[in-house]
Structure formats: C-alpha cells, structure tokens
C-alpha cells in the first residue's frame, strides 16, 4: 500500500508538471492582449509597448515560462496583471463562496441520490423505479443554467422567497444572508448532480442484486432488503466512489456556470472575468489549482477504492 501511494504521488506530481506547462502554453496561444484591455482601443503602439514592458508580457516566452514554474515550486502563482494582487490571495478570497456551494451540493446530492438510486433498483419494475429513472434522465438532459434560471424566476422573482442572486459584501459575517443567497445555487447544482449519481447508484445496486451472494444470503433466510444491506453497501460502494470522485471534481468546476447565473463572487466568476480581461496569471493560477484539485481527488478515490476492496491491492497498481 505504501509503495502504491508513493508511485501514485510521483505520478500526480508528473501530471501537475504536464498540466502546468499545457495551461501556460495554451493560454499564450489564445488571441487577445492584456495591454489592449488595460488601455482603450486605439491607444498608440508606443503606449502599448510601454504597457507590455511594464506587465512583462514582452519578455521571451521561455523566460516567462521559467518564471511561472519557479513561482509554482515556491508556492507562488504570480500576481494579477491589473490589480497587482497575488493570484493565490485572490483565489483564497473566493473560496468562502465556492467551497460551501460545491461541498454542500455534493453532500446533498449524495444524501438524496443513494437512497433513491437503491429504491429505483429494488423496485425497477414498479412505478417508483420507472419514475425515478425518467426523472434522472430529465435531470441529465436539462442544462444547469436553465434549471437555475427557472428556479430564480419561480422562487426569487415570483414568490420572493429567496434572493435571486448576489452575495453579501461581508460574506459569512452575515451568516443568514450568506446562507440564504446560496440556497438556490446549491439546489440547482444538486439537481444536476443527483440526476447523474442516481443512475450510477441504481446500476451499481442492480449489479449487486444479480450477484450470486445475494441469492446465497436469501437461501439462508435473509430478506432481499437485509441481503442488500448486508452485502450491497460495500460491494456497491466501489463503483459509486469512482463516480463520486468525478462528481466532486465536476461540482467544483460546475460552479463556473452556477456562479455566473446567480452572480456569486466565487472562483468561477473570478475565472470568467480574468479570461475576459486576459489577466493571464489569474487564469493560469485558477485553472492550475482546479486541475490540481481534480488530480488529488482522483488519487483519494483510488486509495479509498483500495480500502473498500482489498482484491485491488494485490496487483501492481
């Protein structure tokens, strides 16, 4: 297990280097010049050159690259071209919005999807099973932003129950306000993720139901529900954990859309505004951190799966 962890961490670091380089060069290929954003359109070439020099975007590409990578190694993500604030500080400043949003949607969809998915599998020929499958299909087909807009329209605009968007300036110093403004975004994200998760839980449960050890358990006097409880949780968990990893990552990334629908000052909004302004260090840093999160979640998923199923530990991994 230790050797496996070591191998996986080495692999993770390698992936981060590749991802970091890819992010850097891909952004340099994109059209658009931060200098143009800073000055008005129609500024003289001299002015533009002066600004480029000031920003450092006129330096050779390789020099910029080593600068960015050296920064990464020392834990620095550089600073914003416009605000001159460290990128890391800006990102950390957005987390109080994005983390609660992503994590609570993740936990909620887990709490909703697991029991519903199991029910849909056990009653697959009954009304409950068919309704759940149809709803999940619908939930997957609906675009997240559309669900968000409909919710805003009904709950916030029509019924005036919750704020349609935004986030209090004092953030969590006003806990009620902050929480209230996250309710609709969390519901929206949960709807989208539950739909995906329900299908996986359902198929994992169906898979377990068809296993012979369930028949053995029933031949010994267990009811189907008891057999599922006794043998299904652990056996069904392995495939579901895999999906959870993907889901946790996608809920972090999915905040980009959700935050712009609900005008939340989170990580996603930071990324969007920086892309529009060609604030390359901020884009670079945010994308890099998101990539790193996805990779780390993947690692955690692999380790958890090995803890659940010892048969996986046998191989060379």
């Amino acid at each position, binding site marked *: 297990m230790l050797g496996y962890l070591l191998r996986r961490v080495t692999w993770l670091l390698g992936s981060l280097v590749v991802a970091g380089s890819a992010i850097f060069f891909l952004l340099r290929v994109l059209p658009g010049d931060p200098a143009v954003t800073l000055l008005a359109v129609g500024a003289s070439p001299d002015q533009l050159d002066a600004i480029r020099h000031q920003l450092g975007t006129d330096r050779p590409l390789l020099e910029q690259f080593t600068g960015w990578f050296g920064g990464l190694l020392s834990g620095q993500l550089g600073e914003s071209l416009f605000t001159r604030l460290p990128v890391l500080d800006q990102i950390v400043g957005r987390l109080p919005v994005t983390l609660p949003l992503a994590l609570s949607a993740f936990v909620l969809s887990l709490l909703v999807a697991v029991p519903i998915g199991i029910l849909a599998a056990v009653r697959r020929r009954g009304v409950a099973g068919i309704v759940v499958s149809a709803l999940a299909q619908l939930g997957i087909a609906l675009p997240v932003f559309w669900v968000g807009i409909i919710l805003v329209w009904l709950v916030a605009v029509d019924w005036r129950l919750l704020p349609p968007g935004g986030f209090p300036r004092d953030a969590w110093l006003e806990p009620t306000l902050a929480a209230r403004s996250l309710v609709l975004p969390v519901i929206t994200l949960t709807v989208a993720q539950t739909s995906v998760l329900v299908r996986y839980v359902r198929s994992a449960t169906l898979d377990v139901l068809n296993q*012979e*050890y369930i028949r053995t358990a029933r*031949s*010994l*006097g267990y009811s189907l529900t008891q057999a599922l409880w006794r043998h299904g949780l652990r*056996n069904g968990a392995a495939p579901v954990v895999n999906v959870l990893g993907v889901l946790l990552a996608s809920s972090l990334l999915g905040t980009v859309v959700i935050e712009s629908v609900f005008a939340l000052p989170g990580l996603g909004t930071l990324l969007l505004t920086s892309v529009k302004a060609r604030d390359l260090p901020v884009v670079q840093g945010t994308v890099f951190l998101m990539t790193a999160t996805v990779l780390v979640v993947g690692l955690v998923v692999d380790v958890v799966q090995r803890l659940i199923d010892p*048969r996986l530990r046998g191989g060379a991994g």
Partner: protein
Amino acid sequence: MTVLAATNLSIALGGRSLVRDVTLELAAHDRVGLIGESGSGKSLTAQALLGLLPDGMRATGRIVIDGRDYLEAPDRAWRRVRGSTVSMVFQEPLTALDPLMPVGRQIAGPLRLHHGLNRADAQAQALEWCRRVHLPDPERIVRALPHQISGGQRQRVAVAMALACRPRVLIADEPTTALDVTVQKQILALLDELIEETGVALLFISHDLPVVAGLARTLLVMRSGEVVESGPTDDVLRRPKSSYGRELVASAREVTRLASPPAVVTPGAAGTERGDA
C-alpha cells in the same frame, strides 16, 4: 418423519412448462440424488423447494415443509424456513460468497439471524464450524476473504454456512462441479461425514452419475422437466428402466473404464451398450 415433500411440483415461465409433476420426499438421514443434463429442470426444482424461483416463474403443486404447504406462502414465511430448516449449497463457491466479507462473518450471519446469537457467540460458533468442515488454520481462515482461500476451502465455507443453523434438509446443487477432481472427492467425503453425523436429509443435484451414485441411496433421473426414472440407487444403476437411464449408466460405465487400466477396456462393449439405449 418427512421434513420436506414436493408433490406434483410443476414450474412454468409464462405459458412455457419447464418442470412437470416432480414428486419427492425427504426425511432425516435420506440421501436422494437428482440427476439430469443441464436444462432438465433439476436446479429449478431445487430453487422452487426454497421458494427462490427466478422472477416470473411460477410453481404449482405442493411443497410441504414440516406439515405446512409453502407453495403460496409469502416471503416472510419462507424466510423462517430457509437456512434453518432447509438450506442450500451452490455450484460456484467463489461467486456464492460475498467477496468483501470475511468468511467467519458469513458463516456467523445465519446464526445471528435465526438463533439470535450476539456477534461474539456467532463468531465463536463460526470458528467451531470452520473446524468441523476441516478447514486448516481456522483462526486465520475466519478472518480471510473468499479470494484468499482455495476453491475447495471456499466450498467448505459454503457447507459450514448452510449447516450452521442445523437445518434438517440440505440441498446441494452441483456442489462439486466447479472443483478439481481431487478436491471434488474431498468435498464429497466431507458431505458424507457431516450428513451421517447430523442426520440432515440430503438432496444432491448433479449431472454426474458416478458422483451422485457414491452419495445417494435413492435416485431421481430428470429429463426435459420430467422425472423419467426413480428408485434405489443400486436398482437404477443395475436395471435402468428408461432409455435415458440406460444411456446415463452406459456412458458413466464408459468413463469409469477409460479411467481404469487399458487392459479392462473391451473394444465394442461400450458401443453395444449405446446401441441398447
């Protein structure tokens, strides 16, 4: 006294008849062999006797356990019988056991379910059962997962699970088919020993006549969903009445001859017997 009796048991899927009019009786110390090719309905018969037919299949007739007809009984009634009065050992021990649960807990499960034992007592009895089925190093094996022990050991675990609550009928559905020949012999010897010791009635299902004949005192021969022949094992072996029974006995003899030294094989003899059938 009869523990389990099936009378005119028939099984159908939709309009298609799969098993017709099977009648059998099991009392303490009985050893009944149910033999037939795959698709003859022998496994379905076994599943019906535990009320565990696959979805959509329907059984008719009577299945009387301890004087009560269970054919139309609800699952809750069946559950009190399964594992405690009638239990079953399946063909493939690897998939019949939960791959992620230590075998000791799997044996202890039915004890907790039917006898209401607490975890520690059930675990202690599971350990005792590992000894009774002659598992080597039982203290280690109770904590092992199914993939960590051999195929023969897994089938011993399955036997221990099935017998843990001291049922009075044991249905063994091809319990040795998935095993090596040498391991097969050991499992048969174990079954022989345990049913002698406990007096549990045995219904042994197999397609392999020599295997069944070694263990069963009575034989039922099934083909295409019907019992074509039944009687004491010796009679069926010596004087098979049905053509299928003669065919079975003949091909089993042929296999036995091939296994013996070549001098015993009389050319043409096997062919003649085939011709009779």
